[in-house]
């Protein structure tokens, strides 16, 4: 295929799956927030970065190991998200979505600035936990155990989130609240609380992705801003607000990007946007979006 040997293609597909599961996890949080709150959360990359830093700070200064960080970092960052929703975002729901975008973009810049002030631009290293070191030899490549764990963890979390929103009573209430908040409130459901926790949960998902990424890439203040644009494209391709769309397009785009890196590497950072343009011409609401 394109003069590239088969083992190389297999290797790249495997890596595409790893990256795709990252995209899926990140775009899932964005899709949840957009679908249920109608907020274009530009701070998503910053929360992802803060999740990674929370894990780093926990390990360096508080002795919190990786496994506890997987739980505690999303919790801490999620609470920050809740506070931001309560203090700022809540007042913008009645306005044009542009205001939410501006607010979250500002939050992202502030968070990046603070972390750069504290930790510098070149970032910090987070060690891979001992039990996940080493790799499986697949014949065509060595797959680090840690990457396999990332795929497993992301897919599990994606599945659980999908189940929670689409198949449980709580999820049904959430979806109803987005359709008609007043009516749901009349039934005695505390809608503002529901919305606040949804934002917190979306933010926590970003932070979880940050913890998962910390041992793989340099924990740096700019790690989120380079990723968030791609993740937005993934969400747009999947259909803004569609949970299943975010998961599927995350995985598929990871695979396509992986292949691009062998066939024409220079295009690897634009291929997602080219696909986005094509999809928007053909289906303006995205692959899984409702018109």
């Amino acid at each position, binding site marked *: 295929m394109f003069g590239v*040997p088969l*083992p*190389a293609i297999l*290797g*790249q597909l495997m*890596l595409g799956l*790893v*990256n795709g599961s990252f995209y899926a996890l990140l775009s899932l949080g964005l899709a949840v927030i957009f679908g249920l709150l109608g907020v274009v959360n530009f701070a998503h990359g910053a929360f992802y970065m803060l999740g990674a830093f929370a894990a780093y700070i926990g390990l360096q200064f508080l002795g919190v190991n990786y496994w506890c960080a997987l739980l505690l970092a999303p919790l801490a960052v999620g609470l920050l998200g809740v506070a931001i929703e309560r203090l700022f975002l809540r007042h913008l729901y009645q306005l044009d979505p542009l205001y939410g975008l501006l607010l979250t973009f500002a939050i992202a810049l502030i968070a990046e*600035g603070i972390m*750069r002030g504290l930790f*510098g*631009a*070149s*970032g*910090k*290293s987070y*060690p*891979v936990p001992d039990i996940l070191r080493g*790799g499986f030899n697949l014949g065509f*490549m*060595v797959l*680090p155990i*840690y*990457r396999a764990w990332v795929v497993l963890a992301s897919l599990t979390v994606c599945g659980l989130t999908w189940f929670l929103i689409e198949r449980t009573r709580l999820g049904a209430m959430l979806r109803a609240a987005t359709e008609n908040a007043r009516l749901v409130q009349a039934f005695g459901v505390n809608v503002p609380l529901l919305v606040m926790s949804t934002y917190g949960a979306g933010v926590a998902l970003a932070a979880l992705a940050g913890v998962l990424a910390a041992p*793989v*890439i*340099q924990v*740096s203040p*700019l*790690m989120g801003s*380079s*990723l968030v644009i791609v993740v937005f494209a993934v969400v747009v391709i999947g259909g803004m607000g569609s949970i299943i769309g975010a998961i599927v397009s995350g995985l598929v785009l990871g695979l396509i990007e*992986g292949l691009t*890196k*062998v066939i024409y*590497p*220079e295009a*690897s*950072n634009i291929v997602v946007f080219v696909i986005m343009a094509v999809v928007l011409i053909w289906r303006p609401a995205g692959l899984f979006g409702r018109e």
Partner: protein
Amino acid sequence: MMRKSMTGALGAFLGLYAYSQAAAAGDQIVIGDIDDLSGVYADVQGQGGVEAANMAIADFGGAVLGRKIVVLSVDHQNKPDIGASKFREWADQNGLNMLLGGSNTGVSIAMAKVAAAKKVPFFAIGAGGASLTGADCTAYSIHYAYDTTALGNGTASAIVKQGGKTWFFVTADYAFGTQLQEAAARVVTANGGKVLGAVRAPLGTTDYSSFLLQAQASGAQVLGLANAGTDFSNSLKGANEFGITKTMKPAALLAFISDIHSLTLQTAQGLYLTTAWYWDLNEETRAFGKRFFAKMHKEPTMTQAAYYSATLQYLNAVKAVGSTDPDLIMAQLRKSKINDMFTKNGYIRADGLMVHTMYVMQVKTPAESKYPWDYYKVIKVMSGEEADGSQPDPACSLSKK
């Protein structure tokens, strides 16, 4: 009537403002710093660069020719247009006398053109691209700290001579990365080695695994990393994770001590790299390192040390010629030897390159490192001519004179 007096007041105010600006320019020596203060390269010089320049000014006594020395600083955000327009603005309105240029070859090439147009001495320090003293040279630019040619001659030749004959490059896809790869590839082939392939990764890539697998599939012995900053950190981390460092020897074509510090010795150990300066070379460098550390809480990078040196050498030249005339100063700089804690017997070549000693280093293992920031051991000391060749770059129009 009201409107008339308002206009008059405004006019008077503007006149006064213009006068105060001109006065400020006249009785001060203005040194500018245009650098990446917030992006991926902000740890290479950034605030530390400004601090180093201020240290040089303080050591000089804070004034020259009876005029106070001030520093202006701005973030170019890695955008050539911002760098060039800020430089122009300072030259036109703030009486800029000299410019220190930070990271990013692309920005520095744009700023060199302004230096020539405005006749302001320009010390390119953070940028590596050798074209700054080649095709992009000007009569007012000095490439001060290091360039891609020296990096190639240092790291690549040390590794080829140790038997690393076949190379694969992972290259940052912009001016700096491609110039660095070219310089290294030239050295590899000249020493009987072979380049098996290269892949150009977009600047700011976080996941290098695909590129690294391609490098591994090539069967090359050496993995040449022609990138810098977080790109370098992430590609090296990936190479460790995928077990590629077991079969290939990684070569850092540009790494700063700030990178090694953030990667930790565990990941960076054994790496070869080329540097113009290291804080732990001798008494003088240690003394500077200590003073810098007291302010910034980290050891200076080679380019931060160069910021100090360039500022000091400029002020020495101003004092020697007794004027800030750019042509007199450039002539003075070109004829004097540079001797300070940054380098000994450095000199500025016809094409504007400051020729000076460079060091090939190897990163210590955690066991070898005895105290904080004890990161490098010297593998080889290269004379300036060995690092950059004995002749000025023929691509530069100034070389022919």
